[in-house]
């Protein structure tokens, strides 16, 4: 009875959609569902594979070995004063966070179309929890990254305490923006999903993962690449390792574009979400 009385404050006014709000208050009300979706995806992911969590680590490590062999030993890319394996892995773990966030969030609305048609909850939870799952994998990757830093006796300056979280936040905001935008587009244009792998492929090479941005001679190209938020994030990650200060122009361009991506994604998603149940 106590619960019943306490809930009487709930009042919904249902009317044709108009206006725009982020719906943060409602997201907060539904935080448990957010948690359960994320928990389910992580649990199922690691239940289904016999290798479990190791699987999340093998992939970036394998890539690191291949890239080190190709670009450090064979093509001799100048990675500054960082060991190339550390150099490439710092880019790879951030990239993996972005690419798996974007691809999973992008597909998430279609995968959950059945739930969307049957139950109401703030739709942002779905791409949001896909990103949290990717973030969980990332934390595992980050752990391995630190272990390797010790292994290669790579020193990291104290600036990392500030720069690492800042880099991670940039990736999360950018993936959230791009992921929600693609998720909403995917509901409306069902063949849009086929463009996502291609888009990610292009972005991979437009990010300073296997090469450093400072090695690019043309200023205009550097600024163009800086629009890709990944470059600012990787810049923030690498500068405490290299012991240099990050390129301010790359950072500021990246930060502005991150915010724009974030706002665009969330705005488009919120604007179209009320019709998801009719479309999917």
């Amino acid at each position, binding site marked *: 009875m106590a619960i019943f009385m306490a809930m009487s404050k709930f009042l*919904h006014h249902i009317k044709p959609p108009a206006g725009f709000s982020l719906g943060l208050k409602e997201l907060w009300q539904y935080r448990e569902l957010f948690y359960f979706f994320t928990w389910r995806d992580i649990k199922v992911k690691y239940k*289904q594979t016999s290798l479990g969590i190791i699987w999340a680590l093998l992939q970036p490590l394998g890539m690191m070995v291949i890239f080190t062999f190709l670009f450090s030993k064979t093509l001799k890319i100048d990675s500054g004063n960082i060991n190339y394996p550390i150099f490439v892995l710092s880019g790879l773990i951030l990239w993996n966070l972005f690419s798996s966030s974007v691809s999973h969030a992008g597909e998430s609305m279609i995968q959950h179309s059945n*739930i969307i048609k049957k139950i109401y909850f703030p739709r942002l939870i779905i791409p949001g929890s896909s990103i949290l799952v990717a973030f969980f994998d990332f934390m595992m990757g980050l752990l391995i990254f630190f272990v390797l830093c010790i292994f290669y006796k790579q020193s990291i300056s104290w600036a990392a305490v500030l720069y690492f979280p800042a880099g991670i936040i940039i990736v999360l905001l950018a993936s959230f923006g791009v992921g929600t935008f693609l998720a909403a587009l995917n509901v409306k244009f069902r063949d849009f999903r086929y463009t996502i792998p291609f888009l990610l492929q292009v972005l991979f090479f437009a990010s300073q993962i296997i090469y450093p941005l400072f090695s690019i001679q043309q200023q205009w190209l550097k600024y163009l690449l800086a629009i890709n938020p990944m470059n600012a994030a990787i810049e923030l990650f690498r500068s405490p390792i290299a012991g240099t200060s990050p390129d301010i122009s790359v950072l500021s361009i990246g930060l502005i574009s991150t915010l724009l991506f974030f706002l665009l994604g969330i705005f488009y998603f919120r604007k179209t979400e009320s*019709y998801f*149940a009719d479309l999917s």
Partner: protein
Amino acid sequence: MKPAIEIRNLGKEYTLASAQPYISLRDVLTGTFKSIIQTNRKKKEKFWALKDITADIMPGERVGIIGRNGAGKSTLLKIISRITPPTTGEAIIRGRVGSLLEVGTGFHPELTGRENIFLNGSILGLKKIEIIKQLDEIIDFSGVNNFIDTPLKHYSTGMQLRLAFSVAAHLEPEILLIDEVLAVGDLEFQKKCLGKMEQVSKEHGRTILFVSHNMDIIRKFCSSAILLAKGILIDKGDTTHIISEYISNHSQTNSEANWPEGLYSLNKELKLNRVYLHNKSNDLLSKFDTTEAIGLTIEYEVINDNIKFTHGINLYNSENQNVFNSHDISFALNETKRKKGEFIAKVWIPENLLPEGLFSLSVALFNPNPLDIFIHEHEVLRFEVFTDFSKRNARGNYSNNFPGIIRPLLDWELEKK
């Protein structure tokens, strides 16, 4: 006391742009291209699934929502549960809403029964502490205690349903919306769930909106009822009164549906003229005895050639179970494009197949693969099947309750050993 749900002039319009509910980017690109050169844009057909619904539902009311297929019952629940927004009008909901449009929403086969209770409960709007508080009760109620820590994929369908129902039965929102979910699962367990919900509703004054085709359940469970037809609210009031209004309407049979002007498909490729039921001697009929074959004739016209399609039917019984569907597979097999002209398609529902009761038929002109529906008329014809004891029928001379979805007359062999 203020109503728990105030519905004011609520309407929902769907746009039928094409047979696919979603659009492909390719279609948009090629579509704009085509429209530039051809200028005959695909005409978008709009249709009102709900129109101008106004009703007040008081706290503690248990309202049954009755109506034929496509009357707008599910759309109404979807709007009230905020799954889809209305096109016009508004609704004010006072209280926490729980909706049960499907049992076991979000169930995951890899997770254990216990884990799924938490997941499903949370999707249905239960708080974690509420689930923990009721966990033992939910498990006991479901009767799958021994398997509760086994992954759901090892459960039988029946066990999964019991688990899903028992989470649903323990929902305690102030307003509960239930769609036809209770039509599945074993009858005893359904009754147990309904009993539990009814008890909750009575003790705590919970409001329930309940969609069902099963009039017995509505009669027993609901304190009042709403009758919808073609998106319009026909009547609201006392359950018995509304049910009898619906039945007198619903039980009318019709042997023929006619469209003097023709019923056109969206882009006017096809036109349906007439459908009718008849016996072997071609008499128009809407009542058949079980030993008679039931003939259905569909008359239509192909206006544009070069479209691929076939004709088909869906048959529903009075419980709204889909008894069977059928379409002419001769076109599907050789993939021919159809020529212009008027056609008469005839199909026979064999004798000794259907039991007694009321049935409704939907007629469709469509391409099965890739699916493209040109015309789909829901429940155009309604007929009754009865037993004629003077004929050799599957009942023999047994006249008591004889359940079953079909009633074949089987050949029995007997020999002396």
